């Protein structure tokens, strides 16, 4: 966007610039021309322009040569000697110093946005294809008899009731075990633990534990709960293993939730004579609870979907009864799916698909509950 005045600059303006140095460049040529004959200094023109620019913001739109000095004040207020050359020699106008290439930059933005959109689409399409495939395979098998039935060697008679009840048991026990341990750890680390090396090492390692593969937890559960504690192939052993698996996730989510409570709330409570317990109980926990619950539910939904550690600690592929106590033998939905997929008959694949639908609905429900809790409590105040 070059302005024609740049080329045909008046001799008077050029002489003025040579005399006063760089600031002439701050004023567009029209002003310099106007300024030079009446003998005003360039600074005063620039200052006058700045004032006018504020008083009359429409000036720029009209195309009149108006500019506001945006350079640091130092340059303008520096003492100057007439005739002295100044460093560095400044270009004539801003249009020489910048090459905006707005169209090219806008194109880059568009390209980037399209790439991000495509990345999103890939994920959604694959997910949708998976869902459609499972639903089309399994929805005919999804009958009350299937949900309520016992497993069977005959595909027509097979149901998932024991697996569903087993998953519900495992879910409930896991929550009961993991929630207090996780929240307690988070509160201790955030509110009570002295800030020294040991605490930091613990925190770092909790984050690392969250990344350990679930099968490793299965091995640990097998050695510790099934064998050493002699819990055998019980739901309790599975729940303890799953609780260990999701504990780091609950701790980290709860820590974040506790950290998000503003420090001013703590100080406000302490200044009223609250003990630390009272500050935590009445001010910090209520504020952190939505975040804690959300994190816990999401962690639990991971536990419900796990097959690998549960297989290791002894879930059974065929359970012809509904478990009724934590010490019963059991199976869970993901393992039931796995067991059916391993069978050669195509009918069992359909059963696996039907069970997958059940599992997905369960997980989506849990996630919806998490979102509901978060919105409900964060809207309250």
């Amino acid at each position, binding site marked *: 966007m070059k302005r024609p005045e740049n080329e045909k600059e008046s001799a008077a303006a050029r002489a003025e610039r040579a005399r006063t140095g760089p600031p002439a460049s701050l004023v567009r040529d029209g002003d310099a021309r106007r300024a030079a004959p009446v003998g005003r200094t360039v600074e005063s023109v620039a200052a006058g322009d700045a004032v006018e620019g504020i008083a009359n913001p429409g000036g720029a739109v009209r195309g009149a040569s108006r500019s506001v000095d945006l350079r640091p004040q130092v340059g303008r207020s520096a003492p100057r000697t007439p005739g002295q050359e100044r460093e560095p020699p400044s270009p004539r106008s801003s249009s020489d110093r910048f090459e905006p290439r707005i169209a090219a930059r806008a194109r880059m933005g568009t390209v980037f946005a399209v790439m991000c959109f495509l990345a999103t689409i890939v994920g959604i399409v694959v997910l949708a294809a998976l869902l459609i495939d499972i639903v089309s395979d399994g929805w005919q098998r999804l009958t009350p008899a299937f949900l309520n039935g016992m497993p069977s060697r005959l595909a027509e008679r097979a149901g998932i009731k024991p697996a569903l009840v087993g998953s519900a048991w495992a879910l409930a026990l896991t929550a009961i075990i993991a929630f207090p341990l996780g929240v307690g750890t988070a509160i201790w680390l955030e509110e009570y633990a002295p800030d020294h090396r040991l605490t930091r090492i613990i925190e770092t390692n909790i984050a690392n534990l969250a990344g350990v593969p679930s099968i490793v937890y299965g091995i640990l559960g097998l050695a510790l709960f099934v064998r050493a504690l002699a819990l055998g192939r019980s739901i309790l052993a599975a729940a303890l293993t799953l609780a260990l698996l999701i504990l780091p996730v609950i701790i980290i989510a709860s820590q974040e939730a506790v950290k998000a409570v*503003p420090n001013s709330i703590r*100080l406000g409570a*302490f200044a*009223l*004579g609250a*003990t630390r317990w009272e500050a935590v109980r*009445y001010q910090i926990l209520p504020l952190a609870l939505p975040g804690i619950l959300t994190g816990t539910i999401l962690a639990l939904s991971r536990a419900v979907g796990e097959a690998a550690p549960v297989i290791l600690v002894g879930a059974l592929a065929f359970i012809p009864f509904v478990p009724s106590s934590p010490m019963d033998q059991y199976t869970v939905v993901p393992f039931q799916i796995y067991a059916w997929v391993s069978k050669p008959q195509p009918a069992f694949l359909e059963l696996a698909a039907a069970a997958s639908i059940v599992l997905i609905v369960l997980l989506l429900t849990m996630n919806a509950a998490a979102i509901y809790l978060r919105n409900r409590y964060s809207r309250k*105040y």
Partner: protein
Amino acid sequence: MSTAIQIPPGEVELEARDLSVLYGGTPAVRNVSIAIPDRQVVAFIGPSGCGKSTLLRCFNRMNDLIPGAEVTGAALFQGSNLYGSGVDAVDVRRRIGMVFQKPNPFPKSIYDNVAFGPRINGYKGNMDALVERSLRQAALWDEVKDRLDSSALALSGGQQQRLCIARALSVEPEVLLMDEPASALDPIASQKIEDLIYELKQHYTVVIVTHNMQQAARVSDFTAFLYMGEVVEYGPTEGLFTNPKEERTEAYITGRFG
């Protein structure tokens, strides 16, 4: 250091004796000795980082909550050392209340904000009456009496700050420490806080930290000028502002530094 105010011995409410505070070894307050009279308003002024807030926090042991903070010397409240053995910071903070720079109401109802302190401190009287009295003392009652159950966060900044003052008063303290209570507020809300301080001094000793020298001049009876962790000058407010004895005080109040 000229701490030239004479207070009859029975009327000293708070006193620092040779008090120093170190943050991780760096001194923030150095050997300060200062006496604060009962039911007067004392202002701490000084440039940022001069230790005035730190000194204020010594008087209700809020420095205990800052990791790495170390207090030496003595801070006396009605003659007994706040840092003495067997003194519980929780009890100190009930008797010496604090209002912070930014209004920090709990995200609960107006009523619960005021009632929280009395509840945890085992208040046995009529809670509704106490809440009303506290809100009246903070000049907020008329503005909120019809919506005590609505969220405190719906109040304006100035109202929130007065709610915080009401909250501090609800546990019936004897001293109110105010850490730049009006600096986050607009001039009109500020004015209300200042009027309130004037009222509060009938019943409470008020220590206020402020950046605003006009505010210090308006609200306080005595002013201490702190610089680099030391009390440079302390005396009746009028004298300190019109006829400072120390060169540095004069430089600060005339705006030559800080």
